[in-house]
């Protein structure tokens, strides 16, 4: 698909949309330039198509939307509202307690929910796990992201259950999916790929409407919709293996446009195949009653460890 100045197919002058207006983006994976209006239309159409294709939502669903206040989750909330489906949306923010980082995004989450008229609930690590992330980092020498990830996932699932939701929407974008696949392969943990597709009543069904939208497009959409962007790395992000994989994937995408879509499509194929073989029994945690694969869930193990 070519969409450039006049009839030229030269990418270097492809700074106009086919409608003649100035482009806001050039999609390297399709050789296509789009103006603001056509980019937003394409973006919303794609989210709607993914929601339908993967049967993510149906009439009457009560959906908890994980809204950290970052661009992905705020755009997710806007997109779900834009879909105008007969579903109920409730935004949930998990406050990890990271000073100088989370306060601003909490404000953004609040502001966006108010703007869209969505009910907003905030849950804190301190209340659930007894400690803030900053306190955990001071005490534990292990990689903080593993604590943060386990506690956040647990709290989101529990919040969704407590609020009577049957769906949990999260803002994972195309880049996140690609990074997750590469990380699982590099760590030799392929079975983790299938976990999301296992249906179990104890876990609120997670949906990822932005999973086929590149992160850069999410950012442009956010800017065009005047959503405030967080301009800071999590102070603990340098610990994360993900940062390394992100750079690798971005470098490859620049040289070989379309790579992220191919990696993500591989993820979805593997998720289906591996998910079928994930037949492990889901137990109830002896301490909190939440679903887990052993007698005590990872969250309670971590919480007990933190209280020592």
């Amino acid at each position: 698909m070519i969409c450039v100045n006049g009839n030229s197919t030269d990418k270097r002058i492809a700074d106009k949309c086919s409608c003649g207006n100035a482009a806001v983006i050039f999609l390297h994976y399709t050789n296509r330039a789009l103006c603001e209006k056509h980019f937003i239309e394409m973006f919303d159409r794609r989210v709607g198509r993914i929601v339908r294709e993967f049967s993510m939502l149906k009439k009457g669903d009560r959906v908890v939307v994980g809204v950290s206040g970052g661009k992905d989750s705020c755009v997710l909330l806007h997109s779900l509202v834009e879909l105008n489906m007969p579903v109920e949306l409730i935004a949930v923010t998990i406050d990890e307690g990271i000073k100088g980082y989370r306060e601003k995004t909490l404000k953004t989450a609040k502001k966006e929910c108010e703007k869209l008229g969505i009910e907003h609930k905030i849950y804190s690590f301190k209340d659930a796990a007894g400690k803030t992330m900053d306190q955990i980092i001071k005490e534990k020498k292990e990689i903080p992201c593993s604590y943060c990830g386990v506690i956040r996932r647990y709290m989101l699932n529990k919040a969704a259950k407590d609020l009577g939701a049957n769906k949990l929407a999260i803002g994972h974008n195309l880049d996140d999916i690609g990074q997750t696949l590469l990380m699982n392969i590099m760590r030799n943990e392929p079975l983790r790929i299938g976990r999301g597709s296992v249906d179990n009543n104890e876990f609120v069904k997670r949906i990822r409407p932005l999973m086929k939208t590149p992160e850069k497009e999410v950012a442009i959409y956010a800017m065009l919709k005047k959503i405030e962007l967080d301009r800071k790395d999590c102070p603990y992000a340098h610990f994360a293996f993900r940062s390394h994989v992100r750079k690798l994937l971005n470098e490859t995408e620049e040289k070989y446009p379309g790579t992220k879509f191919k990696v993500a499509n591989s993820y979805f194929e593997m998720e289906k195949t591996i998910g079928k073989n994930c037949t492990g029994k889901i137990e109830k945690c002896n301490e909190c009653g939440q679903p887990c694969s052993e007698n005590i869930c990872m969250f309670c193990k971590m919480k007990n460890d933190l209280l020592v």
Partner: protein
Amino acid sequence: MELVIDNKKKKLKFSGTLGELLRKLGVMREEVVLRVNGKIAPETYKIKTKDKIEIIKVVFGG
């Protein structure tokens, strides 16, 4: 042209597209959004002498 990158301003002489400018500066296009004279623009935009270019980092770890 005037360039704003990481909130720092500088004057620069450059002839080419925004994409070529990013390559020269060693900035990954996947991690930034570009603004020309206050409006979002694609990497394919040809820079003009009096343009004000902003390179905004949008991909963060967290």
